[in-house]
């Protein structure tokens, strides 16, 4: 197996994962999160360095690099943040190992150009979460969530497998590099691509396949959700970008799924009583906005990758904020949170506003790009739907912001010294992120 540069980031992360697993055995589990963080950052740097080398399996174009770097940095940040959280305290070595495996899978998904590569990446990225969601000591809800996720993810990967097989049947090659001949071929190729689309849109909780997301968000422990929504979903979005940019004919079904997601996501979130369920349903809507960008043709992929990046940052910020709250809190106890964790409360407030699309935040700029791209792609009705969706989203985001909730005993609120730094970084990123955009886009 000749060493080829594009594989470097994967090698780094996979190697680190193996060592992390050994860490628990050698009772040096405590430092493993830091070790994992360092490995992720090394991967990010390597991706930056390898920026434009082309490989037959990996094609690090601009959007893949952007997302790849983001995934690594997000995992690094998540790991160092969770290091202070009591939940993974016992098995932190295997915890880090699992996360690094998930990161490997994500990088493969984002950069993959070969269907088989994508399939392996998807499995690598999904399987660790079966275990992570049901982490020992996180209650029965988490277990139920994990099992539901496991079963439905398995169903989705089965669809993915069928899709790959059909495409292979249709045009004989597993490569995804355009022109993806599968489309021109027989009916099998078409059904295969649609199966792929179905599987991936299950992963990002788009409309017809959205049923699972509310329960998992409600049940799963908050630190795990940082990675599920912040890293897992963004990786699948990267895969979708490569898939749709390779097959232009997918734009119509993507547009339909986008519209369905926005409508269903907003409507469900409107009535969701529980905070976590509301966040789950709003994730459906955000998947819809991402797909709306994707449905707008070649220009759309840039906007889609920007939206994926922004969505990732926002969900990481949200769940970092929520991880200090006790598990079954139905709403955010603002007064207590502001008293004990002012900066974290600020982060949570800014992320909610950014999720809703309040102008100074990058959430708004992401949605603005989506609207620009949609109108440029002549899909006016989708742009209007995005606009009305984000306007409507103010209802449930701001009622979450304004609903007065009381916490029975304030000391159940977790507050760790390291978190203030993360929160401050998060606020800066979200509120003034758009100032940095010119340099990133350049």
């Amino acid at each position, binding site marked *: 197996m000749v060493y080829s540069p594009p594989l470097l980031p994967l090698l780094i992360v996979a190697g680190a994962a193996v060592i992390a697993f050994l860490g628990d055995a050698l009772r040096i589990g405590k430092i493993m999160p830091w070790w994992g963080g360092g490995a992720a950052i090394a991967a990010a740097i390597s991706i930056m360095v390898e920026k434009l080398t082309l490989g037959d399996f990996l094609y690090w174009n601009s959007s893949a690099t952007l997302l790849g770097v983001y995934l690594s940095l997000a995992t690094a940040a998540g790991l160092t943040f969770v290091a202070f959280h009591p939940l993974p305290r016992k098995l932190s070595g295997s915890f880090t190992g699992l996360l690094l495996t998930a990161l490997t899978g994500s990088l493969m998904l984002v950069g993959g150009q070969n269907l*088989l590569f994508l*399939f*392996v990446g998807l*499995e690598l990225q*999904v*399987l660790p979460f*079966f*275990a992570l969601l*049901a982490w020992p000591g996180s209650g*029965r*809800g988490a*277990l*139920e*969530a*994990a*099992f*539901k996720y*496991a*079963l439905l*993810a*398995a*169903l989705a*990967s*089965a*669809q993915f*497998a*069928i899709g*790959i*097989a*059909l495409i*292979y*049947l249709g045009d*004989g*090659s*597993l490569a995804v590099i355009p022109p993806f001949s599968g489309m021109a071929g027989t009916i099998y190729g078409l059904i295969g691509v649609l199966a792929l689309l179905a599987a991936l849109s299950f992963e990002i909780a788009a409309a017809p396949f959205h049923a699972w997301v*509310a*329960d998992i968000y*409600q*049940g799963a422990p908050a630190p795990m959700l940082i990675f599920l929504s912040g890293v897992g979903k963004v990786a699948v979005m990267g895969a979708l970008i490569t898939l749709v940019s390779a097959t232009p004919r997918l734009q119509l079904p993507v547009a339909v799924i986008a519209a369905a997601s926005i409508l269903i996501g907003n409507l469900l979130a409107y*009535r*969701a*009583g*529980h905070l976590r*369920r509301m966040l789950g349903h709003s994730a459906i809507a955000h998947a819809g906005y991402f797909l709306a960008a994707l449905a707008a043709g070649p220009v759309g992929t840039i906007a889609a990758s920007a939206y994926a990046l922004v969505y990732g940052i926002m969900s990481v910020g949200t769940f970092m904020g929520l991880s200090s709250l006790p598990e079954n809190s139905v709403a955010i106890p603002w007064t207590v949170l502001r008293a004990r964790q002012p900066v974290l409360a600020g982060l949570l407030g800014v992320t909610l506003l950014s999720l809703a699309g309040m102008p100074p935040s990058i959430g708004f700029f992401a949605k603005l790009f989506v609207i620009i791209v949609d109108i440029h792609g002549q899909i006016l009705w989708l742009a209007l739907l995005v606009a009305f969706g984000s306007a409507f989203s103010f209802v449930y985001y701001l009622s979450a912001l304004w609903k007065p909730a009381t916490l029975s005993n304030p000391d159940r609120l977790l507050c760790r010294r390291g978190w203030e730094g993360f929160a401050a970084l998060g606020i800066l990123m979200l509120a003034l992120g758009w100032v940095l955009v010119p340099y990133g886009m350049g």
Partner: protein
Amino acid sequence: MTLELALVIAALLFLAGIALILLRRSLIFLLLGMELLFNAAMVIALVGGARWHSSTGQVLVIFIMALSGAALALTLALLLRVKQELGGDTVDVLCHLREEADE
């Protein structure tokens, strides 16, 4: 001719798997249904390999077999934990997470 016949078999396998998942109450059968879906994928992959006279089909089958095994192994482990903690292995056990507003 054999191509269409094999595809019909794969389709049947797929439908059987879906039926198993949707109709049966016990979680074990859900996993069985999942396994059938993966088998359907393998059949299609084999047919593809045969049609294009290349070994990629078989490589694909091996990969699907490996990954399906991994996925189901973990799901089985979770199933044991569910049986222990939630006290049953039917689908209705898993109903704690839902929209409260319904009641």
